[in-house]
């Protein structure tokens, strides 16, 4: 079943055309990678899914719901969660709270005036948050300030913040960027484990190693257009892809 459908999306910044008639279709349960050289428009495309940017033309439909022009929190409430390229966390809150916040958001909606009953009294939220911290191995640090984590841990925390919401679709913007090989492999393992939950994922990635370990469908973006789409093994040998990467190499 198709979960996300992108049709005819265009986006220009000044004279520069960042996205040019992008069409994309993501199937439920898939890990769909979007790859492409620097400046191909990957992050721009992702930003169009989450309401950070509004396309000039075109539609983005998520499970039958139009995502264009609606606010970031509404998109999230619809079931789309995002992991940022540089870790975006609540630095001066504890790790536990970092996970509790998204958990509350998915259970209580985008705004609830629940100013009386303590957070810690919400057993279901606490349990959920702690179990996800268990999963990603940050449980014993739960009272530590999030800002004090290493970069890799911050990424894992951010992943936990997504997963605790039981999203229908996760957008991962270069989940391993800037990581050591070991960390990268850990993350891949983690993502694979999560994969077992059957959550649909869109991964934007440079690292082919990551792409080919995770994805079961790949779209290649170059100069704002999807040039090839297919299974990873098909993509590997495609000359257009190589040309796009080589052609983009000088950028």
């Amino acid at each position, binding site marked *: 079943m198709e979960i996300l459908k992108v049709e005819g999306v265009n986006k220009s910044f000044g004279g520069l055309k960042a996205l040019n008639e992008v069409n994309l279709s993501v199937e439920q349960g898939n890990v769909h990678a979007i790859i492409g050289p620097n400046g191909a428009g990957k992050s721009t495309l992702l930003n169009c899914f989450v309401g950070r940017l509004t396309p000039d033309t075109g539609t983005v439909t998520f499970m039958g719901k139009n995502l264009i022009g609606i606010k970031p*929190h509404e998109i999230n409430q619809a079931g789309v969660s995002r992991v940022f390229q540089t870790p975006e966390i*609540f630095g001066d809150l504890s790790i536990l709270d970092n996970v509790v916040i998204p958990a509350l958001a998915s259970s209580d909606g985008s705004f609830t005036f629940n100013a009386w009953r303590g957070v*810690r009294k919400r057993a279901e939220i606490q349990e959920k948050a702690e179990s996800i911290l268990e999963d990603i191995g940050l449980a014993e640090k739960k*009272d530590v300030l999030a800002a004090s984590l290493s970069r890799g841990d911050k990424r894992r925390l951010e992943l936990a913040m997504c997963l605790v919401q039981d999203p229908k679709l996760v957008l991962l913007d270069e989940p391993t960027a800037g990581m050591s090989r070991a960390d990268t492999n850990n993350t891949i393992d983690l993502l694979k484990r999560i994969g077992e939950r059957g959550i649909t994922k869109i991964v934007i990635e440079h690292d082919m190693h990551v792409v080919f370990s995770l994805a079961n469908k790949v779209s290649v973006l170059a100069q704002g257009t999807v040039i090839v789409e297919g299974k990873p093994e098909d993509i590997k040998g495609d000359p257009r892809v190589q040309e796009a990467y080589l052609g983009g190499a000088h950028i």
Partner: protein
Amino acid sequence: MLGLNKKDTTLLIIVVIMTMFAPFILNPFPETSQLAQFNAGYPDLMQRFVIFGIFAIGFNILFGLTGYLSFGHAAFLGVGSYAGVWMMKLLTMNVIPAILMSMIVAGLFSILVGYISLRRSGIYFSILTLAFAQMSFSLAYSVLTPITNGETGLQLALDDPRILGVSQVAGSIPPASLFGLAMRDSYEMTLGGWAFTFNVGYYLCAVVMIVAFYIAIRIFRSPFGLMLKAVKSNQQRLNYTGVNSKPYTFAAFVISGMYAGLAGGLMVAMDPLAGAERMQWTASGEVVLMTILGGAGTLFGPVLGAGFIKYFENIFSKINDTILHQWFAALPDGIEDTLVFLIHPFIGKGWHLTLGIVFMLVVIFLPGGIMEGIRRIVDLFKRRSPKDEVSGGAVPSAKAAE
């Protein structure tokens, strides 16, 4: 207890004890001693401590939690005061309707101001709130004189209509009261050289402050409070987390506006006069200073900050050269005069100077305000004890980050 964890319960109990026994705590020196000058246990100042404490607690819900720095909060206090005095003029000298009306009017006004100001953030938000408050002040001082009585301040008169009460009692304006208990009634107890005053008005304010403090704890520990902290920490991220941060900040703004209105209502309940200066930017600045000085984002810090500034304003400004000479009378004349000469610039009319220096010292050396000072002292003692595994649970201590 009361739905709080152990640490918060302890804090609440400390606050209850401090406010209930304030007449003793604030009057540590015998009446006849030279140090009696430093006693603060008289009704007016005690009332001010708790009223400004309420104001600062409310301000902290906005600033301490969300990081939105309002430079116009005094406007809500002022508007609340005017509403309170009008209730006393028109309806009854019972303080309950006055206080309620203060909160309602301040709440409505903060809905208006908040709705517009919260469209911007950062310093732009600060300037918007400042602009609203300065406009309120300027207009209240001049063209709105029929409603506010301008420069003089709105006060009661002998011919107020007062629907549910009497205009005057034997040529005097009846006192503000709570079902017959006059706010200005006091009971004085003398113990040896000490005199302690127990004032009805103070205890009303104190009870209200304890309730206000308790509500603040609940808000701090609630999901709502957590969202507000998240706004301060990373508002963008919060939006991508599926939370609509606007209504949260808006609710916090209105709540803190109502706290300010409550403070304003209590002020007129204690002393039925509302002056326009209450709304000036310096008054808004004062609550900012109280909060930061005490420790923004901490529960009890703003109350301490409020007490600190009001103590300076009321105690230091009253010390004069004559008193200095009395203190040092025992010393040889030359030393006495030198000491008086050296201290003279900092007391009496120089209390602003002392306050300015204290601001600077606190910010330079205690970035977290007075609460950080207390924490450091506590840490100092704890370091001596062998095991030190107390991390606040709910609030990750700064130590955890080290």
